[in-house]
């Protein structure tokens, strides 16, 4: 577009029209380009429609592989233009088949999506290769706070502190900084305190499919009551 501008600088009226034309032309080129990319990647034209279950499973596998984030069944279904139930079935079959291999990788469901990950039993070797150290851990105070928030969300700071019997909200700040919790709006009560809940990051860091995967807190009462 800069070139066009320079070339037509003598006539100001034409310049605007020319610029418009040029940007339209470029837009079309970009659109055509991205369309062909999409076509190649997702195969969403009639010619590339998935033929059978085996192929669908293979395609699903490849999509999960290239996705950086856990990939949801809905996203896969949208890309493949298939029913979500069909995709869900493929995912289940893929998981059974893949995990049945007992290899170094597992296909798992986390934070509402699907993801390939290494098996924990080989972590020492993986860590040695990556030259990585275990990431910073949470303090007991932070974990207790996180537990309260996970089970009582949405919950306000005073409510959290009361259950823990402490006065310092610093561990809440820590969790917020680590993006494990998020603000969930204000409670319509005196002072309109901010309410907090767990984030998607929380599900990822604790390897949870969703919040329902957390054991019931009443089970802990039985557990704790024994002592």
């Amino acid at each position: 577009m800069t070139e066009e501008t320079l070339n037509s600088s003598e006539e100001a009226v034409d310049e605007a029209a020319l610029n418009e034309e040029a940007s339209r032309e470029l837009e079309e080129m970009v659109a055509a380009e991205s369309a062909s990319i999409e076509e190649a990647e997702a195969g969403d034209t009639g010619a590339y429609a998935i033929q059978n279950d085996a192929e669908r499973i293979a395609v699903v596998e490849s999509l999960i592989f290239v996705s950086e984030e856990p990939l949801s069944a809905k996203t896969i279904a949208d890309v493949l233009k298939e029913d979500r139930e069909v995709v869900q079935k493929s995912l289940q079959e893929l998981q059974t088949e893949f995990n049945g291999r007992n290899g170094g990788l597992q296909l798992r469901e986390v934070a509402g999506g699907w993801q390939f990950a290494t098996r924990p039993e080989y972590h020492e070797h993986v860590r040695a290769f990556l030259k990585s150290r275990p990431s910073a851990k949470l303090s007991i105070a932070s974990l207790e706070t996180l537990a309260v928030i996970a089970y009582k969300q949405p919950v306000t700071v005073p409510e959290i502190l009361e259950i823990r019997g402490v006065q310092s909200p610093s561990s809440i700040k820590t969790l917020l900084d680590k993006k494990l919790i998020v603000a969930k709006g204000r409670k319509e009560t005196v002072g309109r305190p901010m309410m907090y809940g767990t984030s998607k990051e929380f599900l990822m860091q604790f390897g949870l499919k969703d919040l329902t995967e957390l054991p019931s807190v009443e089970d802990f009462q039985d557990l704790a009551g024994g002592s």
Partner: protein
Amino acid sequence: MTDEITKGTTAQPATEESSSPIDVTGSSPEIVADDTTDDLKIVMGEFEGPLDLLLHLIRQEQVSIYDIPVARIADEYLRHLKAMQDMDIAVAGDFLVMAATLIELKTKMLLPRDPFAAPDEEDDPRKDLVDQLLEYQKYKAAAQMLWSRATVERAVFKRAEIETDKNNPEVTVGLFDLLKVFQDILARHKEEVQLEIEREEITMADMLERLRNMVLSSGELNLRVFFERARSRRELVVAFLSVLELVRTTEVRLIQRETFGDIIAQVASS
């Protein structure tokens, strides 16, 4: 304080290097040194709060949580606070509040019951405390569950990130980002009431020298800090120009660690 060592948190991984001196108590697998904001955690060692200490004492004295011998537990509790103070550990206010509560309970328990009042369990002055302890105990157990989940999860590796702008902070700073920082500072300068004491003209050469020195001395320099040193509008303009100049001559490069974050000038590595 020796009795504290007996408090057992089961899953202490033997291989983890202890990261803080507080680990002497031996049962705090989760103490992290980098979390300096949480003063309470550092000074208290393994007890995360008064409820935690109280639960520990109840377990240690092997008494029922539903029928706490208040006098005995209160004495134990105070003994622990005393021990902490003797060790020059600052006792947080939460612990003192609980001490007061326990003493109050102890007093109430000594008082004779109103003989005419109907015998009622709700009447037990310990009820609130017991409820609070039971509730806290649940979340303490839940925290342990989360801890073990996180431990397993840390051993699971996901595929590495694809190279993105986020991993390449260098490409994300444009001229407009730089201009934005400059405008922010300019706006702030306008707001501040300035006491003009003397007019000191700084030349471009001086400014270039100053910037060079500031960047070289520490390897990198937050441009916000640099701009904020400017004492006049004119000086600010010169400062801005000097940044552009050093970037042009590739003596420094500009990076931004996060979107909308501060812009950092770094010594350009050859």
